[in-house]
């Protein structure tokens, strides 16, 4: 199988060497930050972290397909790499973990629940698929204002596709032919519930036909394939073609969160089997095979990523917690007088 892949011509879909290397750095950065979150939790320094190990290919690919300053991203909590990829400062992930200051999050939300209006990352909650109608509403706003050349990218996991709000959002976006791409990061597991308990179909993308929507599927462990598939869908949306449901298949390497223990519901053999298809190793292999990067450059890149993550960890940890008075701020516009 591996040989067959190698024998294929290298299709870079217009991506420059620099972009291909940027993808690799983004992937390493998000994995290093992920691992840092779990380490900090085990050290007792932060109460909670989520990880997206195994999703790196999706994030690096989708991030390059996203048009900064034009598109709107409506992510979910397993999208740290994607949010960094579209322009969010990596320290924001650490600020979220440490629940430290930061003007946008203010230590309120769980880690990995970002918001960044200035670069088009919409605020979202932990409630699965509750952000999908918001994405449809944002896409409706673009269409309503006749802002062609813009689209919404909304991400969710496979479990989200069971939610009523997800179905309603797909349907609404198709009825109104909205400029939106629905990106399912199908990692096979919704906490402990496998895909076959979630749906009676093998591929999430099969659902698209029921809404009269385009559907496309890609290998989420290949950032180049993800880039091509998501870019095609976003271009289609930006030019008025309407919504697409994209399914990117991947695998969740870590437990759901630091509070979960995946040994209670899936075998180590299964996890190891998927780890052998690691998106980072795969992308490294591709770049090495085609002379886009050298082993030495990869080592230097990894070292630089670790330096950066160490640096932002220290910076975030050194910041103070929000002042308790902040609890009462931004309930409503203006000064809130709590009912006492």
């Amino acid at each position: 199988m591996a040989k067959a892949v190698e024998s294929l011509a290298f299709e870079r879909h217009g991506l420059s060497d620099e972009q291909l290397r940027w993808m690799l750095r983004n992937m390493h950065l998000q994995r290093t930050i992920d691992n840092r979150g779990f380490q900090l939790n085990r050290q007792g320094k932060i109460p909670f972290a989520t990880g997206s190990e195994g999703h790196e290919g999706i994030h690096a690919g989708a991030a390059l397909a996203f048009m900064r300053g034009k598109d709107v991203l409506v992510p979910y909590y397993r999208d740290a790499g994607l949010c960094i990829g579209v322009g969010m400062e990596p320290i924001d992930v650490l600020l979220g973990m440490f629940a430290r200051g930061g003007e946008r999050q203010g230590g309120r939300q769980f880690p990995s629940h970002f918001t960044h209006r200035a670069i088009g990352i919409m605020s979202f909650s932990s409630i699965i698929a509750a952000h999908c109608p918001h994405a449809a509403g944002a896409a409706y706003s673009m269409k309503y204002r006749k802002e062609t050349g813009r689209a919404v990218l909304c991400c969710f996991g496979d479990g989200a596709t069971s939610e009523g709000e997800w179905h309603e959002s797909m349907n609404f976006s198709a009825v109104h032919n909205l400029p939106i791409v629905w990106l399912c990061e199908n990692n096979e597991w919704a906490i402990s519930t496998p895909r076959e308990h979630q749906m009676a179909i093998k591929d999430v993308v099969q659902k698209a036909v029921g809404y009269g929507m385009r559907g496309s599927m890609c290998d989420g462990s290949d950032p180049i394939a993800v880039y091509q598939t998501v870019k095609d869908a976003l271009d289609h949306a930006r030019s008025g073609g309407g919504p697409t449901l994209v399914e990117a298949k991947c695998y969740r390497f870590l437990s759901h969160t630091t509070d979960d223990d995946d040994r209670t519901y899936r075998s180590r053999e299964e996890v190891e089997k998927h780890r052998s298809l690691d998106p980072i190793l795969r992308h490294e292999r591709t770049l090495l095979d085609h002379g886009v990067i050298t082993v030495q450059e990869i080592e230097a890149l990894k070292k630089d990523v670790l330096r950066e993550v160490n640096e932002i960890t220290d910076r975030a940890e050194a910041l103070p917690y929000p002042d308790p008075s902040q609890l009462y701020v931004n309930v409503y516009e203006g000064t809130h007088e709590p009912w006492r």
Partner: protein
Amino acid sequence: MALATAGTTTMNNVEAVRHTLYEALKADPKTLIMGEDVGARGNVFLITKGFLEEFGPERIIDTPLAEASIVGVAVGMAMEGLRPIAEIQFADFIYPAFNQIVGEAAKTRYRSNGDYTCPLVIRTPYGGGVRGALSHSVSIEALFYHVPGLKIVAPSFPADIKGLLNAAIDDPDPVMFLEHKKTYRLVKGEVPNGHYTIPIGKADVKVAGDALTVVSYGLYVHQAIEAAKQLAADGVSVEVIDLRSIRPMDKTTILESVRKTRKLLIIQEDNKFGGIGAEISAMVAEEAFFDLDAPIRRLAGPDVPAMGYAQTLEEEFMIPTSRMAATMREMVAF
């Protein structure tokens, strides 16, 4: 408060809602209306009749029959700078949207620390007395008034409807706008011409008096005023306060009145347990206990899941004006 231009127009409550929505659509292209049957049908109470023709299908959206996304899509529009007015056809149908209202709209500003806001209006007709049975009669305010981040208004006079609906549309935060459907065509009044707003969170003393304070909202305000008139004929002056806004609640007006009359009766259509009257009672007991000359009393709907379709069952649920007057007399005599 913006001042109205001179003169008034007589309207019923349906006309007041319609007129205000129409003016809002005319004034601001960011406003749009979305809901079930708001377009070609013009809403089941004909509130938006003709709007589709005048404002077009982009602004008058006949949505799929799916309440969670009516509110949820509107939340997304609001976050991206539009001013959506979402309609839930009957308040009884709002439950599928509970997550979007309580979990999302109410917390958008808070969770993003002000990075995103949710200037959204959710209009819905509620209340009984129209043979609406279990799923076209309910009061929903108690299910939502617990939630910081939301505002809830329930005006029941045409002039209040206009002023508060304008305020809701202008408001930078999510507002639930509750319209008692029995008052739609029953209640008429003078509505000032031109644009004006009434501040959300301000109650209104509809009848001034000194022997008893009655706090109510919705249909029962009108019955409470009628009952107060009956007592006035006997020389007893009862003060009737129309809450108008449920959240935020006008503590000041209630407390000022209770400190004057020293007695408090709360009348609500919703059932008693955990209802609006429960919070008012607790608040007055905490803040004005020593000003009271009688126990606080509440007249409320019975502790059953809903009013039945049969006339006898509906009448048993609803509180007649005679019972309001009798309770007022008991309290005045206490």
